[in-house]
């Protein structure tokens, strides 16, 4: 399974311009670690609302760039957060691993 859906990525590139997508990828790569940080501290504090919101942001941004697998992993965590029960197991690490892979591929693409 490819990490980035090239149909989505190319359509976005066409709609916004090649230079812009570079900016967009940078914004995503800068913002996502912040969201991870929020998820970790929310997890520690048991704050499911903040956890859910950060997962929601990662999901939304991943989907925008065509990183569908990352988006669906984040969606699962968002759902867990929404249910108010923060039993995430190793899912956060899995999500982080997926992000690192997407990051590498985005670096190559943009």
């Amino acid at each position: 399974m490819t990490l980035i859906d090239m149909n989505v990525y190319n359509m976005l590139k066409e709609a916004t311009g090649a230079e812009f997508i570079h900016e967009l990828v940078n914004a995503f790569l800068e913002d996502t670690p912040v969201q991870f940080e929020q998820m970790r501290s929310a997890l520690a504090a048991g704050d499911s609302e903040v956890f859910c919101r950060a997962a929601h942001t990662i999901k939304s941004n991943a989907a925008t760039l065509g990183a569908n697998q990352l988006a669906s992993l984040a969606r699962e965590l968002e759902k867990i957060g929404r249910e108010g029960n923060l039993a995430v197991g190793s899912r956060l690490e899995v999500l982080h691993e997926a992000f690192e892979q997407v990051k590498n591929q985005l670096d190559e693409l943009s």
Partner: protein
Amino acid sequence: MSISSSEPARLLVVDDNKVNRMTLSRSLQVQGHIVETAENGREGLEKFRSGAFDLMLLDIEMPVMNGFEVLEACLNDFDLRQIPIIMTSAMEELDAVVKCVELGAEDYLTKPVNPVLLRARVSASLEKKRLRDEQRKLFRTFATKEVAEELLRTGFSLGGQIVTASVLIADIRSFTTIAENHDPSDSIELLNQYFSMMFDAVTRNGGIINQIVGDGLLAVFGAPIFYEDHRERAVKAALQMLEQLKTFNEKQLAQNKTAIRIGIGITSGKMVAGYTGTQNRAIYTCIGDTVNLADRIEEYTKEALRPLLIDENTRQGLPEYYKVEDLGKIVFKGKNQAAHVFAVLE
């Protein structure tokens, strides 16, 4: 992507997610629009209130004030209500989206937003707004803001309904004589000044002008929007007309110009109201015995030598502080029953 074929519009993108804001505003700018952004609901609402926007793209899940709350605030605002709002949301929030559309959001888009759909939905919403604005402008030329909104909301279909309302008919006495003593452009000028005074009095009291024929006008109070006090509104408008005319005449006489005298007849009751004409040219009008009687009573002002006459039904709905003079029952031409007529004293 090429530049949009539609006119550039001023758009507001409200989203707490930076990547979403960037993507949406860039896509819309590429399509030729002018875009501003806001990071949360409250900021969005403040910007929307202060700027002249043509459309807002509004996220649902946001901190400070969510999209749902922003939408409600806009729909409760008379001016903001006219501007289309497109909700943007994740696929999973479809329940919330349905609620927004039911409330009055113009449309919705799911994120990630497909650029082709974005263009189509924005263009369609702007086009609908443009048509509504044009209609509104048209309606406002013969009705108050409130009546115009009512017409827009309920739409206007050709076909009548029975309403309870008051009809006011006003006519200039011996305008012909005045016209003969003026050149044509002066006469039209005089007529326009006169009508602007009369329109002002009608719309200020919530009435609408239905017809202008020559120097006469027919206005209705209480339809298409029903007012409990339609009788008083009509009489108030008539008294204001006479008052304004008095001031106007003083100025005219001071400049050695012709003064205008008018007669006004008001009746109240049931009548058939609706749009008559064709789809291309239609007017809102009222017909029925109540309207015919108003015409007769207005004519009778000449004989009665009183400028403002009303029928019994109107008299009954007037508060005590209006002074009236009972002129008795009059049998009008073409009518079987006598009508009880009253003069309202200025």
